[in-house]
């Protein structure tokens, strides 16, 4: 029913440091459809971070291609790539990475400001997203005045507010205790259901994996399992 938003085709990534070659990804192919809620799991060193970085254009594959919305991002460079990421990809990092000198509201607005979206539109979007991620009333605080869970909610809001095609999250719950992590995931899933937002996130945690609707398991840089759940 949904088209492919992201298509990873035959992607390999070889890291070579000090003459030592590491095959982080070996010929991985994967399609993400719109409105999917996908977890990428696997043991440490299996290539989860590498795959997410390549999906987002932060890293380039040694071979293979990555198409986002029908456009190859593995060949983009400089401002073109920056603008494409800004307009089509939302990011959530393991360690929140909010801009420390900007308030919650300004952090959420940041990408819209880069995009040149007008003030009225920004305000309505920020107000509605604040409610959806459950941090109303905190919009004027600075990141350091929030707990980790709250900061990650702001990060989710920042990733969502510009309506990207896909949101990529590398271990978004790794820095949170399991209860906080679980509730963050529940919130993400609600947003996925309510707004049809496409999420791909990586995790170690089985409790988090259980909340995914599609589970991709990597092992030694290869897709070992790819299953759709309930």
């Amino acid at each position, binding site marked *: 029913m949904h088209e492919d938003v992201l298509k990873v085709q035959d992607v390999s990534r070889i890291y070579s440091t000090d003459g030592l070659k590491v095959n982080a990804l070996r010929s991985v192919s994967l399609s993400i459809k719109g409105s999917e809620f996908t977890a990428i799991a696997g043991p440490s060193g299996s290539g989860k971070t590498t795959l997410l*970085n390549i999906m*987002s254009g*932060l*890293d380039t594959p040694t071979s293979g291609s990555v198409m986002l919305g029908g456009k190859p991002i593995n060949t983009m460079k*400089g*401002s073109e790539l*920056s*603008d*494409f*990421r*800004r*307009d089509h*990809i939302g*990011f959530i*990092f393991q*360690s929140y*990475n909010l*801009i*420390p*000198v*900007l308030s919650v509201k*300004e952090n959420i*607005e*940041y*990408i819209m*400001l*880069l995009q040149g979206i007008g003030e009225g539109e920004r305000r309505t979007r920020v107000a509605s997203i604040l409610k959806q991620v459950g941090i109303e009333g905190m919009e004027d605080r600075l990141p350091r005045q929030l707990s980790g869970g709250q900061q990650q909610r702001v990060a989710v809001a*920042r990733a969502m507010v510009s309506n990207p095609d896909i949101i990529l999250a590398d271990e978004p719950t790794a820095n949170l205790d399991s209860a906080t992590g679980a509730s963050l995931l529940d919130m993400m899933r609600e947003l996925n259901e309510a707004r049809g937002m496409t999420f791909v996130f990586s995790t170690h945690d089985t409790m988090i994996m259980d909340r995914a609707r599609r589970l991709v398991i990597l092992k030694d840089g290869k897709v070992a399992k790819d299953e759709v759940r309930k």
Partner: protein
Amino acid sequence: MVLIKIAFRNIFRHKKRSALTGLMMGGGCFLFAVFIGMVDGTYGNLIDMFTRDHTGHIQIHKKGYLDKPSIYKTLNGPGSIGIKIDSLAHIQSWAPRVYTPALAFAGKKTTGVKLTGIDPPKEERTTRIRHKVDRGRFISATPLNEVVIGDGLARVLKVDLGGEIAFIAQGADGSIANGLFTVVGITGKSEGAIGSSTCYTHINSLQEFLSLGGRVHEIAVVLMDESKTIRVVDLIKKALDDPLLEVEPWQVVESQFYRAMQADIKGNWYTIMVFTIIIAVGVLNTILMILLERTREFGVLKALGTRPFQIFLLIVLETACLAVLSIIIGTAAGIFANWMLSVYGITYSIPIEYGGVVFDRLTAKITLRSLVLPALIIFSTAILVSILPAIRAARIIPVKAMRST
């Protein structure tokens, strides 16, 4: 723009470091402002003293007189030249002069002197020679064979007020001129080295003494405003339109003094350059520290879709914001200090003699360039220094930056 907001707020993240960097830039700005203010004030003062004491701003001679003075190189009809000068703009007044070397005798003492004939009323309007008389009085307006001599000469000749000096010189007609003059005034020590050999007398007395008729050697012109000197030189040249006359500004007439002053000013610029380099190194150090500390942050901004050029701008803007803040404070302090110096000055405990002029007070002047130049120097230095680190920040690779915590 959101980048300016981020840049500005980042200044207050490391308050101590920003304050220190700001202090360097603001302090530099302050120092340069006072420096330039003092150059403008003190040299302005010095030029003023120099020109108004004796030289005047512009001098007119017969061609070749400045190179090789001679009593034969005279200006005919100083009155008609004067009328032409008076008709020009920016002129305050002018005074004719006659010069001759002479031997002076008083009792058993004798020495060589430079006799200067002046027109007392005109000289009074033009220079401050009159106010240099310490004891006795100035030469009367009518020619009465009176002389005003320097304190040094009075001691050499052992004469005092009312004493008589006999002068011998060569007249313009080839005869040996001699005459007896009465000392009516003695100038003080403040005249410096010139004082020991200068004698002023009435111009008509000297003209008669030398059989010069109505001819003079020099016309000194004083302007309302020294800065117009070069322009008025051209005006006078055009008005006189005589290739046998030499119209020169004080910079040429007193070229030795002028060159000494220029060398001094150049030295001041070297000092400013050295300070600028020190400031540049300090600012660079801060920016490199910022780059190191915030590599991860710049990586995140890039990952979020901030363009490389916007990251570049962020660093440059942050430097610019801090520079502007520092410059505002530094300039304000500089204006205040220059104002204080211009009103109160600093009096030297030992007066300094400079090119024959004694000056004992350091003053400053609030000039446009004492405000604009320091700000420009500091601002452009800060921006220049931030460019390379900014390019490095723009090239940060997000994946690498975010791996290194």
